């Protein structure tokens, strides 16, 4: 691997995106849980749930801050590291990038109001109403940014004549075939990840302290939502596979180690591959890849053989795919199990193995998010704008990327360390039960 400015730019962009993805996912996912907790809290006049919403919101502000600053970083790095790409893509896809700033602006304003007006309204429902623009703003941000990413995968809405972009249709570029499956996948998986992270915290607290009602309520809410959103994510994954099979077959083929175009194609799970491209130790499900691609075993799935070697994505993305799907299935299973045990009273949903599995599911969900983005981005290689510009052509010619890379890595380490420290300090030795007692000594009155 040669560390030229192209490779360094890729490493820096990957570092920023992988760090930002953590906070962006939390940023999109958590507001909906704050909304649910406050809603139930007001409706049931339950002080526990109001304190739950408050504490989630308080932790959320810390992660939002890191999300905002790393989001600013990636926004600027697009131009700093990929100037030629932005010069070309700016002509066609500037619209959603521009709209994203508005969506974020909208979210930032209402989040600021929400955080500082907990006790300023006589009618609590007014305060709850403020969560609506926050949820809409954060979800719309995800939508707009994902549509830019979708455009990189399936650029359309323009013609390229002698290096000039003509016949530009901003809406066609924004609503390309990749947009809906990707947006659905990103939004659902963010909600899902937020659910499992919050569930993991609650489960951990129950294991440590034998569990008060406060944590049990939190775990019930997040597990029910977790099952819903994990199912939604699975559906979105299925739609993504169908999109790939139709529009971006080389990505699907590389992720699935599918080398020859055929019908009744097998789905390969796990396994390893050697230098000659021989797959071993795999689990083969006959015809399943065809079925996933088009709901029929007769669907023809295009193989990597149809693409010149220099346009094939690296085959190691298969591992990222396996991990992502494996964790998704695991999450479905444990949230399903929890709810099953909860519904039938003679079982105990608070058993230790299940609680420990839930604790594991939080970090694992984030691992799945990272693997999903690695799969999405590396699977597009060698293109930065598929079919029009390679990553190499888009990169900066500056010789200073190395220094910038070192500075940013240090920044991310510092932010990560302080973020974790501050979050720990925020909640350690400040039990929610005491906060409930302090804030609502007489329960909730009208």
């Amino acid at each position, binding site marked *: 691997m040669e560390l030229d400015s192209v490779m360094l730019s890729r490493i820096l962009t990957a570092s920023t995106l992988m760090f930002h993805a953590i906070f962006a996912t939390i940023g999109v996912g958590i507001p909906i849980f704050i909304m649910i907790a406050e809603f139930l809290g007001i409706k049931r006049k339950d002080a526990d749930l109001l304190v739950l919403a408050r504490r989630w919101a308080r932790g959320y502000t*810390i992660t*939002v*801050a*890191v999300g*905002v*600053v790393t989001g*600013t*970083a990636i*926004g*600027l*790095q697009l*131009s*700093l*590291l*990929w*100037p*030629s790409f*932005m*010069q*070309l893509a*700016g*002509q*066609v896809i*500037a*619209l959603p*990038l*521009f709209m994203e*700033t*508005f969506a*974020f*602006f909208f979210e*930032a*304003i209402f989040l*600021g*109001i929400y*955080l*500082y*007006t907990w006790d*300023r309204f006589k009618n609590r429902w007014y305060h709850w109403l403020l969560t609506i623009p926050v949820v809409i703003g954060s979800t719309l941000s995800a939508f707009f940014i994902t549509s830019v990413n979708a455009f990189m995968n399936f650029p359309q809405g323009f013609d390229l004549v002698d290096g000039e*972009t003509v016949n*530009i*249709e*901003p*809406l066609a570029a924004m609503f390309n075939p990749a947009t809906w499956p990707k947006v659905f996948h990103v939004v659902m998986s963010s909600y899902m990840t937020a659910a499992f992270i919050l569930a993991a915290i609650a489960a951990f607290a129950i294991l440590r302290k034998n569990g008060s009602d406060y944590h049990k309520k939190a775990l019930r809410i997040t597990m029910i939502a977790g099952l819903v959103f994990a199912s939604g994510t699975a559906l979105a994954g299925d739609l993504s596979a169908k999109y790939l099979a139709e529009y971006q077959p080389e990505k699907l083929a590389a992720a699935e180690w599918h080398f020859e175009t055929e019908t009744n194609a097998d789905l390969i799970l796990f396994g390893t591959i050697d230098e000659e491209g021989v797959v071993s130790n795999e689990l083969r499900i006959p015809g399943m890849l065809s079925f996933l691609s088009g709901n029929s075993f007769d669907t023809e799935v295009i193989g990597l053989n149809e693409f010149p070697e220099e346009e094939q994505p690296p085959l190691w993305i298969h591992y990222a795919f396996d991990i992502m799907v494996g964790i998704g299935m695991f999450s479905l299973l444990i949230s399903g199990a929890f709810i099953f045990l909860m519904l039938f009273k003679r079982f105990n949903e608070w058993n230790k193995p299940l609680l420990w599995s839930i604790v594991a599911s939080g970090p694992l969900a984030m691992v799945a998010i990272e693997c999903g983005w690695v799969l999405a981005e590396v699977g597009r290689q060698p293109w930065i704008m598929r079919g029009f510009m390679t990553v190499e052509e888009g990169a*900066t*010619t*500056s010789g*200073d990327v190395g*220094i*910038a890379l070192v*500075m*940013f890595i240090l*920044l991310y380490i*510092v*932010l990560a360390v*302080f*973020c974790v420290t*501050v979050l720990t*300090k*925020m909640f350690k030795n400040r039990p929610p039960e005491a906060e409930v007692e302090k804030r609502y000594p007489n329960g909730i009155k009208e």
Partner: protein
Amino acid sequence: MSLEVLGISVLWVFLYGYLIIASIDFGAGFFAYYARITKREHIMSKLISRYLSPVWEVTNVFFVFFFVGLIGFFPDTAYYLGTALLLPGSVAIILLSIRGAFYAFGNYGVSNNTFFLFLYGATGLLIPASLSTALTISEGGFLEETENGVQFLAGELFTSFYSWSVVLLAIVSVLYISASFLTFYAHRAEDVDSRQIMRKFSLFWSAPTILASFLVFLSLQQHNPEHFEKALDLWWMFGLSFIFFLIATILVYMKKNYGIAFIAVMLQFFFAFFGYGASHLPYIVYPYVTITGSVVNETMGTALVVVFIAGLLLLIPSLFLLMRLFLFDADYVKGKK
């Protein structure tokens, strides 16, 4: 009005908005730190945090809005400025990140951490310095186009008199704008002690602001005579700017009408900033990028304008609500809510 003039005007308005709000924010960080180390914290920091806490993210968005809009309306700037600004831009992002993150860590998380406050105060002065290099580079002389692409001449920038005079102006303006606003805010809050301190600051920084502005003019004459000539044609804008400076300073000196004084400060910077911007045209990056040569295709340009108007219709009421709840709610300002 042609698309490119409309586009650059809108962007310049946003950059002006950022200049004012961010200056208040950056300067406030410095004053908060200053109050801590001179043990006058109990007086001022409450005032500062009441104003800042709800709005800091909004400040950041103004900045993001400006550069996303710039690339949207003038994609060629991404190529030239993107290549040139890799290092100064990275430094600015890192400082902004440290500032934003540590503000949140300190304010929502662990309280009373002097180190966090130091980072917050110091970055408040370093960020304007590093961001101002983008404007300096746009004057030309710091870029070279070779067959390997655009090269940034960092050595030239660090040894340029013009570059340092801009840095100086950026820092003193931040302190001056911020002190003027906080004087007004302290007055609204009926916080006499804070008002006295902030009033002294705003008078203290007024003369350096004007001196630094003259310095920038002088060095611009050497650095980019063409721009300097065009600025002289717009002498009346800079004249108005100076008149508003006098109004503001006199009002603050006479302890009268702090609100009007702050509006005069805003107008002082409005005329100077737009005079500078208008005389900079048609160049965005001298001499490589002009607004006419780099403007985005008409379809996208129109779409951006439509979205912009729709966005404003959404944002103005929201911003109004934010201001009503925090900035202009007398009880909140006084700390009763």
